[in-house]
């Protein structure tokens, strides 16, 4: 997906759109290497407070999944929620471009990062989300 960066905002701040191909980044503890996706106060593993930003592999394997058929009001269903092992870092995401059907999804399958538009706001800015789709 070719996207111009101007006029775009990532759905979450750990999705990077303006530095080469879209990818995720994590806050990596400078002391023990534990990785986190949220804003940090300190490391949950070793309590250190220094972090560096590291890129996350854009390909991975499905470690766990579910097909959500019943969700909160306003959440379109069905959708496939999953945990993807991206070269040792666990990532939470939806699976996309896949039939939401247990026949078509299995743990261990290879997937890769993809992005999609969440729509434009009143100022013409497009929010861009991410998901993983089967690696062909």
């Amino acid at each position, binding site marked *: 997906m070719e996207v111009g960066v101007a006029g775009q905002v990532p759905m979450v701040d750990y999705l990077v759109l303006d530095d080469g191909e879209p990818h995720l980044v994590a806050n990596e503890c400078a002391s023990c290497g534990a990785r986190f996706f949220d804003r940090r106060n300190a490391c949950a593993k070793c309590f250190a407070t220094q972090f560096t930003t590291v890129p996350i592999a854009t390909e991975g394997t499905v470690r*766990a999944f579910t097909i959500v058929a019943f969700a909160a009001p306003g959440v379109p269903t069905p959708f496939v929620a999953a945990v993807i092992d991206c070269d040792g870092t666990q990532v939470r995401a*939806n699976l996309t471009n896949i039939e939401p059907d247990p026949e078509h999804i299995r743990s261990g399958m290879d997937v890769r990062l993809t992005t999609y538009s969440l729509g434009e*706001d009143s100022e013409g800015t497009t929010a861009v989300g991410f998901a993983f789709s089967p690696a062909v």
Partner: protein
Amino acid sequence: MSASDDVWILGIRMTKFGKHPDLDTVDLAAEAAIGALDDAGVTMADVGVLAAGNLMNASAGIGQQLQKQIGQTGIPVYNVANACATGATALRTAIMAVKAGEADYGMAVGVEKLAGAGLLGAGGVKRGDAKTWSPSGRYGAVAPIDGRIGTETMPGVFAQIGIEYDHKYGGLSFELFARISEKNHAHSTLNPLAAYQKKFTLEEIMGDVMIAYPNTRPMCSANCDGAAAAVVCNGETLKSLSLQQRRRAVKVSASVLTTDPYEEGCQVLPNVNTLTRNAAGTAYEQAGVSPGDLDLVELHDCFATAELVHYDNLMLCEEGGAAEFFNSGATWRDGSTPVNVSGGLQSKGHPIAATGIANIWEICHHLRGEAGDRQIANAKIGLAHVIGLGSACGVHILERSAA
């Protein structure tokens, strides 16, 4: 009063779980608390500490509300909230106070009004009304994450936990998870206090409404109303009581509460495994018993997928052997390690803060030989487990009195 290693459950009671439209949380808590006091043969005048939980209304001070209905004696109240482990946390709080010598008798109460509640855990943020995309929160998100970046609903989270087990060890299937639910619903037919006492065929379970694959509706815990309460005392105090009280008292051989230690990925998908394994390991050591000594287990089957992983986490089977263990029939009520003979959360119901005391009531009922039609013959030792996402895990090991 003196510090004591010896703590006993002297009285315990749960209300009927289900729909109680005419009773509020205080009514339900009072019914359980007065019942537990009667069962113990003591009154509020004896109780030196009260721990109480009502998760869905955690700031309301259910302990003091309860005191105002059943007895205001000026004792300290600890209102606790620890997700689905709230009841176990209340009990553990009362046990710690008694163990520390701060009180001879303590009471724990858990209550919830949940009948008709929908899906729990789903984000409550209204979608689509933002005029401009503006980042907020710890992920700098411009839109609600639930449904866009995985799922935050309980059935979906626990579904992934079951699938993850299959990914690690293999041997699982939708049908196997459904069979676990078939067992618990069959067990519930013998429990008059269960919210649902309906037997389901495997086909009915698998063919019911899918909530989050592989959990269909009957494979999910039942939202309902209910309360449970327990009165505990120390060993010295028990010695001064009647033979009848001493015979019915149940020994708390282990009382453990844990949280999840950091592991890779634990902030992405909750790790309900390690904290349960840690709690169980500590509990077996405290009690001086091994999993093979257990006559029955009440574990936190909030979803069929959860029950399976906890066979392994509680070390009821070999590591990775949960499917084989279940397939052997071990966890049915006539098996070697009966699990959830009450019907479990899927049919007995899951009024959140009551659950962690109600499962102890079930164990006590069997250890006292008072479980009627569903009595596990000659039960001497039982284990009760709960887990609250976030996470908190409570494990109690209970033993029949030798008196």
